[in-house]
């Protein structure tokens, strides 16, 4: 592969964990819930995948374990915020702290253990195309999932009744309830979906991107995913663009270190993704396109 193709392919890969996590959180936020615990769910998913894959020898079992772990944590969050009506910001932070701690605890025995890598799945036929082939069609299954989620969600939200009901719950939960839609149930389902995809994002990191377990290996990607949802103005297609942008920044940072831009210390280059996130948030705020779901973050108590 020539360098350009290699770089493009690596951008697609780097964007995957962001895409997976942000797609799930987008669904959650459009239903009206703000789940800040993405980082915690991602890390727990990462260790669940790693531990399951190395003990069983089967990385696909690891993927399942990661989705399950993420969903379970999201369920816990749902219990606190949807049933017990606790403050969503505080609960999300609690979830992050708990998830980070839990993952470190569970991962204590796995540091330094060599990982099981996810097999690469070349799409027959498509992967032979020039340029587009190696860039898009020679990845593992989680990358493909990440690429399919935005169009799939766009279809779901715009064209299906279930998607419409989900959007209604995020726009005006009281009205949705008055019309008879099960707001709390919809939000629970959205949370489970978001938890699963965050877990899968973590699984990608520990089973494909760098098949190892390192404490706090997500390095803030969960938070960046949250920013991505804002950047995308809660629309799935823009999420793709944002994730690729950030994937690009990450790869740029890696290669800049390698290409010997020695004037700049490695740590300063590492700041790039975080500074880029702030810049992107500022840009989107100033553009006036910020239209969050109207009920985002507000607890809903169905009158009886």
């Amino acid at each position: 592969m020539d360098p350009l193709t290699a770089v493009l392919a690596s951008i697609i890969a780097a964007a995957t964990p962001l895409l997976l996590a942000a797609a799930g959180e987008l669904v959650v936020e459009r239903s009206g819930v703000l789940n800040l615990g993405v980082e915690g769910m991602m890390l727990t998913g990462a260790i669940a995948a790693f531990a399951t894959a190395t003990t069983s020898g089967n990385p696909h079992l690891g993927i399942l374990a990661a989705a399950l772990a993420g969903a379970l944590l999201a369920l816990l969050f749902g219990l606190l915020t949807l049933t017990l009506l606790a403050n969503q910001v505080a609960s999300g932070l609690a979830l992050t702290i708990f998830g980070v701690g839990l993952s470190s605890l569970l991962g204590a025995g796995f540091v330094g253990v060599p990982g099981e890598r996810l097999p690469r799945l070349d799409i027959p036929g498509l992967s032979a195309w020039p340029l587009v082939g190696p860039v898009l069609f020679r990845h593992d299954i989680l990358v493909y999932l990440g690429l399919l989620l935005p169009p799939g969600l766009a279809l779901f939200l715009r064209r299906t009744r279930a998607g419409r009901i989900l959007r209604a719950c995020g726009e005006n939960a009281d009205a949705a309830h008055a019309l008879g839609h099960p707001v709390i149930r919809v939000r629970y389902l959205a949370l489970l979906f978001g938890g699963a995809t965050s877990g899968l994002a973590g699984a990608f990191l520990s089973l494909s991107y760098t098949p190892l377990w390192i404490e706090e290996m997500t390095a803030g990607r969960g938070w960046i995913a949250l920013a991505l949802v804002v950047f995308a103005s809660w629309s799935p297609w823009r999420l793709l663009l944002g994730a690729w942008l950030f994937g690009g920044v990450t790869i740029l940072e890696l290669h800049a270190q390698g290409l010997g831009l020695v004037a700049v210390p490695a740590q300063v280059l590492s700041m790039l993704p975080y500074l880029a996130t702030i810049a992107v948030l500022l840009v989107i705020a100033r553009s006036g396109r910020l239209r969050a779901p109207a009920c985002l973050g507000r607890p809903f108590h169905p009158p009886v």
Partner: protein
Amino acid sequence: MRIGLEPRIERSAAVALLAPVVAVLLTLLAGAILFALLGHAPGAALYAFFISPIDSRYGLGELGVKAAPLVLIALGLAFGFRAGVWNIGAEGQFTLGAICGGGIALFLPDVGAPWLFPLMLLAGVLGGMLWAAIPALLKARFEVNEILTSLMLSYVALLLLSTLVHGPWKDPEGFGFPQSRLFPEAATAPLVLAGTRLHLGALVALLAVPVAWVVERRALGAFGARVAGLAPAAARYAGFRRPRVIWAAMLISGGLAGLAGVFEVAGPIGQLVPRISPGYGFTAIIVAFLGRLHPAGVLLAGLVVALSYIGAENAQIEAGLPQAVGGVFQGMLLFFLLGCEVFARYRLRVYPARRRA
């Protein structure tokens, strides 16, 4: 038969006070179960975690050393949270405070006693405020969410510290280790309890509690901030303008975090190193909530959470438990607290079965 939550007309003060206590008890219970699952005798592990770390003078001092930064930071965070301003980047403001204060110690040692130390403290407070001013500006002027911006800046601050101690600020006689020179004597926080590492910062944190209490109750600005957190439209109507509330909340919490940072490097650590905090800025969030956002509660909560830190270290040594248990404890504590304090606002009600036609 159905069980549901019914809103109370008046918040129950009794439940609000009991909730943290119940949360701590539930955490202990969950902790015991966790220890058992990890293959340790729960009783011995709990003892190693909560009792034996503080049954010596040195241990109590260590409790204070860990509690001081938590309490200082949490006092500021509590003020902000009450105003609806979510400063999640206290870790970064803590770090900037340490950098600025430490910079004074490293590059202006000739100022000498007694002015050097106060100057460091001032620099630390200003450094923390400066770092908090960025998310404040972004939110007040551009409506950018402060949770994400302050958090991103935390990562940047840590990388900045790393850059400095690996590069320009590295001790030339440090055998290549990433650390700065040791701070001169005049730049070290004085000890307040012989035989321990307990330093002036703990005293300052202790004194900050009653000050915060009085301000919280009687200052018009604090009242305005509280209104802003409860009902933003009412705050505007009453004349407490939103940008002012945002700036005040961020600068106060940033300044206190920066102060905690400079105390930490001038006290227990004594120099600048890449890792100066076991996550104080983040854990202080738990302390703020556990303390129900009230200064006295923050003090008690700070002691409890500090105990979980040194307990984790101690349990690792005495009982062979992994250190990450501390983080799990803290997360569980916050979970249980959030779950318990719901009952201050809602009552559990049993709805009788109805005849179905």
